[in-house]
């Protein structure tokens, strides 16, 4: 595309998946115990979207990448210390809750407003990226709502591949049922692309990219607007950790043949 793409990636922090999560009920709804202290990572699907965006921008000179994040400012700053070293991007930060219990519609409203305020954003060149779900709310709904609010009606979810055709058309592969891909061709931007894992590995840390990014990220964090995102109209009756501990039988002294026989009987039962 002449002049490149303008790629906006929506994504924020989630608790490190290795952390133990414990719910607590507050006056504003449920949350996580010691939520502000939990180590955080960029949501894995949003991270894939960011890496795909950067790869696409590299292939198309003149392209720009923005990362739009709603999260507590201090925690976003901490997160950026690692994320900024991965790929070049500009940050648009909104200082609000990144809780998984926030309502998708409220978060979408904040994201759409933040995207709408990006200076010089050309909607005709806009690729709106994000994860097809998140590791916190896991709604898989936010991106579509942001797209609707921005008037983008070409949307693709659970995408693993986006190829720009010589004609400028976009060829996308979306995951569907049964391990299959739905292959579609879209005339061009603006489109919404909710990424699954894509095909790119996590880029190695690059301190030079990090230093360049941080020049823009620190002012963006300072200018982050305070936003209110909550549980919306949801009334939570309970939030709990499911009972998941099983009485595991550890079998140490059976031969492979005996184990195979036991498994064969189990499979056939």
């Amino acid at each position, binding site marked *: 595309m002449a002049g490149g793409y303008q790629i906006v990636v929506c994504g924020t922090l*989630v608790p490190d*998946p*290795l952390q133990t999560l414990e719910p607590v009920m507050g006056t504003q709804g449920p949350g996580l115990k010691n939520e502000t202290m939990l180590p955080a990572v960029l949501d*894995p699907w949003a991270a894939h979207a960011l890496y795909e965006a950067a790869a696409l921008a590299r292939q198309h000179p003149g392209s720009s990448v923005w990362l739009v994040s709603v999260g507590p400012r201090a925690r976003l700053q901490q997160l950026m210390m690692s994320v900024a070293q991965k790929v070049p991007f500009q940050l648009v930060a909104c200082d609000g809750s990144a809780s998984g*219990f926030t309502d998708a*519609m409220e978060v979408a409203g904040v994201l759409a407003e933040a995207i709408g305020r990006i200076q010089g954003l050309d909607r005709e060149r806009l690729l709106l990226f994000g994860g097809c779900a998140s*590791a*916190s709310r*896991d*709604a*898989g*709904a*936010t991106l*579509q*709502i942001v797209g*609707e609010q921005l008037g983008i*009606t*070409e*949307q*693709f*979810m659970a995408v693993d591949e986006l190829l720009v055709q010589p004609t400028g058309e976009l060829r996308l592969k*979306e995951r569907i*049922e*049964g*391990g*299959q*891909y*739905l*292959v*579609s061709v879209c*005339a*061009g931007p603006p489109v919404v692309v909710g990424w699954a*894992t*894509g*095909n*790119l*590995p996590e880029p190695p840390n690059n301190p030079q990219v990090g230093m360049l990014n941080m020049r823009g990220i620190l002012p963006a964090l300072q200018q982050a607007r305070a936003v209110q995102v909550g549980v*919306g109209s*949801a*009334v939570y*009756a309970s*939030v*709990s950790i*499911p009972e*998941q*501990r*099983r*009485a*595991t039988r*550890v*079998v*140490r002294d059976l031969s*492979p*043949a005996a*184990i*195979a*026989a036991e*498994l064969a009987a*189990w*499979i056939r039962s």
Partner: protein
Amino acid sequence: MDSVLWIAHTEASGELGRSALEALTTALRLAGPSEQLVAGVFGPGAGRAVAQVGRCGARRWLVADDPQLEQPRYAADVAAVTALVRASEARLVVAPGTSRLHRALPGAAQRCGGRIDTRVTGAALAADGVQIERWFYRQRLVARLSRAHRPWFLLLAPGADAPWSGPAEPPAAIERVPVEVASRTRVVGTEAPASSAQTIRPEADLLLVAGAGWTKKQADGQTHVREAEALILDFLAKTQASLGSSKSLVDQGSEGTPVLSFLSHLHQVGQTGSTPRHPRGLATCCHGEEPHVVGWRFIKERRAINLDPNCGWAQGKADVVYVADAFEVLARLNELLGPTG
């Protein structure tokens, strides 16, 4: 009592899928005894497909069968769903969590001024109205919640309810709902491995998970990746099990390390992968770390083969852990399972 709209779409076969019938069971329960259910079906052949559930007790039958709805595209699907919701004037919308509706329903909720909850694993009528169950943080916390806002859109997870069954009979009257479709997208087709090479089988009774251990050095100091491939494929062919994998193994492929050639990100189970719903699961050479095991939340019976008696599976995450070499066990197991059917 809320009026309830059950929304479903036809499959490529022109029929309603299992998840649509599961959602119908939920919708009927939420509609209660006062017959507040409206059925809305879109897609090619929707007019004929409703006969499949014609005796479910819906009081109205809405159908959108514009030929342009044959291709699953967001712009067309969201227009169809929006039209059905508006025609029904329903306050509660219940839909199956198919890839098609998962993509389109949130947009329809936005257009209708509604709120949406997805991946709903249970819904019931409580004293104060409809209450749903859904999971947060990738199946690590479970919550029960309700909403006062209407319309309320519920996208049900597969397996949330038993599929509705009953005699087929065309409804007495069908209302056709016009849909305005304008899309810049065309569907080229689907891509899938040949049926003989397909290793993801959502309907299978058994899930076999292959972990990174299959590609590690074995007791002889060598890797045996090709042997591992043969053992796993032989097992899958004999059992018709579905294949899953851990992130670490799939990632090795992206990073250039030789891995099992038939694995892709589609096989990934866990925090950043899928959450399959098979009755039984067998983990092999997989350590059972929490980010992977969250994907096993809905696997009922779990067994694991691992050389480490202190692996994650042994910490209350599996029913049985066999401390053994998976290469040896799977070779013996394949012999016992007999020739490939």
